[in-house]
């Protein structure tokens, strides 16, 4: 017990640094995947068969394979097969590769959620706007958008919570996120080895993050409950 107390400052310092990397990956993924998902969504709904077919196959492949494989392929393929290290070296290279893999993966999930949201708005909404002389952009921004956001918020919230935990997959390419940081004390690092408790403790970080997000997203859903 005394030992653990002595280890704490070192361990928490490491875990904090790891968690910072986790959060960076989390936010960068959301920042990239929200707009890219919209682009893919518009692609799958395109009138041009070639574009929509391409986007649909893309969605099918990404959603049909594990994120873990996508991470490994995206990270190793350029270097090992093309003999060209496009990601840069060290931790920043690993982060870039991980971010690309996560953004691609989540964008495809988001695109399907967006599509469901768009298609769930009854055509009568658009027609009512048209008959009242509104322009297409006015109809989108003033009428449909908020209804769409309300409908996609619950499934998007689910994905966001899942993403918090999924970031730990980046451990597979040795990204120094929080699991990596915790695991280091198992193998031996900064004079501490064979310690399992730091790894257990990483769970507390995840719980805090998902707990806060659940509260925040729940409040947002509540805010949109004024209409149906």
């Amino acid at each position, binding site marked *: 017990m005394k030992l653990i107390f002595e280890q704490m400052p070192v361990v928490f310092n490491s875990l904090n640094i790891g968690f910072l990397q986790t959060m960076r990956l989390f936010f960068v993924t959301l920042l990239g995947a929200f707009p890219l998902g919209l682009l893919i969504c518009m692609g799958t709904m395109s009138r041009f068969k070639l574009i929509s077919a391409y986007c649909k196959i893309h969605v099918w492949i990404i959603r049909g394979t594990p994120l873990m494989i996508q991470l490994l392929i995206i990270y190793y393929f350029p270097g090992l097969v093309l003999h060209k290290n496009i990601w840069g070296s060290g931790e920043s290279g690993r982060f870039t590769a991980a971010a690309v893999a996560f953004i691609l993966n989540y964008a495809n999930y988001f695109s399907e959620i967006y599509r469901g949201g768009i298609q769930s708005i009854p055509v009568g909404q658009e027609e009512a706007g048209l008959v009242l002389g509104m322009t297409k952009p006015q109809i989108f921004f*003033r009428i449909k958008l908020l209804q769409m956001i309300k409908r996609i918020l619950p499934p998007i919230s689910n994905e966001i919570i899942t993403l918090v935990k999924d970031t730990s997959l980046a451990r597979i390419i040795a990204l120094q996120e929080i699991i990596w940081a915790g695991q280091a004390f198992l193998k031996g690092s900064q004079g501490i080895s064979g310690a399992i408790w730091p790894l257990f403790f990483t769970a507390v970080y995840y719980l805090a993050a998902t707990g806060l997000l659940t509260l925040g997203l729940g409040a947002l859903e509540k805010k949109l409950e004024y209409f*149906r």
Partner: protein
Amino acid sequence: MSILQVEHLKKTFNRTNVLKDISFSLEKGQALSIIGSSGSGKTTLLRCLNFLETPDSGIIRINGDVIFDGAQYSRLSEEEIRLRRLHFGLVFQSFNLFPQYTALENVTLAKKLLLKSQKKSGPDVLRTIDEEGRDLLRRMGLADRMYNYPHQLSGGQQQRVAIARALALSPDILCFDEPTSALDPELTGEVLRVIRSLAQQNMTMIIVTHEMAFARDVSSQVIFMDDGHIAEQGTSDEVFNHPREERTKHFLAGYNKS
């Protein structure tokens, strides 16, 4: 001169002819009822007038001005269509109110956006629009419902908001597509009363309805549609009390039985 003239309107979906050469005219201040069995093309006709469907051919005139000509339609820009459809208002069977807006906002939104896009909106203008909106809702008997959201209103109240919303843009002709068909029977009365009072105020209207008693006494002109044709048209008295066509007699007999 007639406020509305429709000449040889035709509309085909895939290969089915839904409107087969529809011609009629309507005088300002009159109410025209369109009756006919389901699938006869009534909704499609209203949708064509409101530019929600594009007729294959035919001409639509308002006060003598051609606003649609099937032979030239493709040259119209989206902007022109948008302004031309403002001659008409449309009240849907399923209300189609905007759920995230209050009754008053539903009524005023379109006019505010219209004036904004014409760069004519200032605080005074917005206040006037709100005042007009409140007036309209009062006329619909909804003085105490202005700040309610659609889901807090009964079907009959929602439809009355929808009527106020359509009136807010002062259309030349207000169209109703079975305005009471989605309502519980005990709620149809309040909506029909509102439409009746509009008729008394000489609002020009085209009303598609299955409420035969209502159509008979609210409308001056009646059109009976059958299979994409106008099978019979005339005054309310002519069509309801002295129908000439077998099809009309047969259709009306079906209603009198029930």
